[in-house]
């Protein structure tokens, strides 16, 4: 939306994951009922999203008028800083919330067993996607965001305070990232490399879907997830390779992505 390709979104995801682990660890240590562990998880994910505000005000706002290359490099700088900041805070060993993954039990769907937690996450992400869609298309704030993305100068001329919009949008985006990281944590372990690993996947999702398109990002995520699952069961060596080849194909054929806006 801000026309910034954020390499650091993976780092926010990792940050959310670690915060989630810590919050849940603290919660269990304090004797909270395991059934409600998702509450501290979500709260922690949202809380560390506030770092987005700091990053936007402290760093990104200086490069809005610069060449895209410098914006990209700025986010790369954030990747480097965040990776080590996470190492400093949580150490290098992987962290996980052992045991809580199956706290909600399992259910059988179409003959396969799946942990209930997975369903919760799927439902939660659907709800978040719908909420974002609603925010962007049905509210005044959403209209302002879209207007800003279309034509920043014009929006500013109409009396919109660009600094506040950018700060809000970026913080919101960061929060979604950290929340995503927190939600995934019961199913896997938090590792300091997960940020830079995720970025290439997120990148694939966004490119396939189209930059600046929410619907596209959703479809892209679905496509990448399904393709990976298929590739793993058919020919594991090709898993990520296939994703990148599709990314390249999309970039070459439709550089704006499947759902991207037409060339201006």
């Amino acid at each position, binding site marked *: 939306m801000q026309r910034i390709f954020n390499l650091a979104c993976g780092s926010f995801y990792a940050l959310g994951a670690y915060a989630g682990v810590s919050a849940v660890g603290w919660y269990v240590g304090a004797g909270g009922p395991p059934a409600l562990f998702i509450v501290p998880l979500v709260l922690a994910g949202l809380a560390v999203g506030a770092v987005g505000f700091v990053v936007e005000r402290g760093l990104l706002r200086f490069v809005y008028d610069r060449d895209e290359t410098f914006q*990209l490099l700025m986010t790369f700088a954030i990747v480097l800083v965040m990776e080590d900041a996470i190492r400093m805070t949580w150490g290098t060993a992987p962290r996980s919330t052992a045991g809580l993954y199956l706290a909600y039990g399992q259910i059988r769907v179409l003959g396969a067993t799946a942990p209930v937690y997975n369903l919760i996450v799927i439902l939660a992400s659907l709800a978040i996607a719908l909420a974002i869609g609603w925010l962007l298309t049905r509210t005044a704030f959403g209209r302002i965001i879209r207007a800003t993305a279309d034509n920043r100068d014009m929006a500013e001329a109409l009396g919109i305070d660009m600094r506040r919009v950018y700060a809000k949008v970026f913080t919101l985006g960061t929060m979604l990232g950290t929340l995503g990281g927190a939600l995934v944590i019961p199913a896997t372990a938090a590792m300091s490399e997960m940020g830079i690993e995720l970025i290439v996947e997120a990148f694939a999702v966004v490119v396939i879907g189209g930059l600046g398109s929410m619907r596209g990002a959703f479809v892209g995520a679905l496509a990448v997830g399904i393709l990976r699952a298929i590739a793993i069961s058919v020919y594991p060596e090709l898993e990520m*390779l296939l994703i990148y080849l599709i990314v390249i194909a999309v970039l070459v054929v439709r550089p704006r992505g499947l759902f991207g806006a037409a060339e201006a």
Partner: protein
Amino acid sequence: MGAAVVILAVAAIAAAPLVVSTYHALLMLPFMAYAVVLLGLNLLFGYTGLVSFGHALFIGLGAYTGAFLTTHAKIRSLELILITAAALGALVAAPIAALCVRYVKIYFGMLTLAFGMVFYTFVLKFYRLTGGDEGMPFLRPSLLGLSLDAMPKIDYLVGPYYYYSLAVLALAALAMWRIVHSPFGLCLKTIRDNPTKAETLGIGVTRYRFYAFVISAVYAAVGGALLGPPTGNVDPTLAYWTHSGNIVFMTLLGGFTSFFGPVVGAFVFIYLQNWVMSVVPYWRLIFGAMLALIVIVAPEGLLGLVSRRRAVPAARA
């Protein structure tokens, strides 16, 4: 004055193994290899205005070419390795460049990043050919037909191999100097500053960008091959996207607006990284902060700062 500085710098590098400790002389080896890579990268970044986030692909390609030739094909001649790396670099770069140069700015960066990751995944997954995440040994190459296997490793590296790298760097720099000061180089700068105008002047913008990309890939492959022997091993992190980011960082650190800026950047990056790591393990934290600072206050890098200071009194006079 500029020529004097360069001659002095070359003399200093040549004298370094005799003066500084072996440890610091060894650090010069990756510096020289990266300097070759960055001379090429800057043809694309500084002179053509395209920033690649996938040049680690060609570094990896060069390094793996050397490793493959020395371990599997029993070819130990470094001349042959460098020529093969250069040829493969050009061969692989050609189709990638043909696709990438159709785009500029962010799309160019993303496309190169995607290609880089394709190569990384290939290296990681096809372990029968590449050794997977463990990488592959890069056996000691012979120099100018002389097998130097009997030499102790350190003597080999700070002796013959050191001067061999320096010679390659000097040749690469000379060739690049000729390229950027040729009519071809001027066309590239025109394209960077105003592609539309360049097009109307009859310069084939896409074709020139293509050439610049392929040349930079050849440099990256040669530099990549030079990175192998000091460690004696190559691994997939050479081709990872953060490595591409690091070399762009080096270029920016030294200054992409000047010919030798990236070389200075490589030097400062490697020694500073080494020093920071000896004090605290968190070099990324400090380097990230440094990069952010450079982007905000000194986008023209260290040499940019120097020339700015020099320009101010001149403007007053």
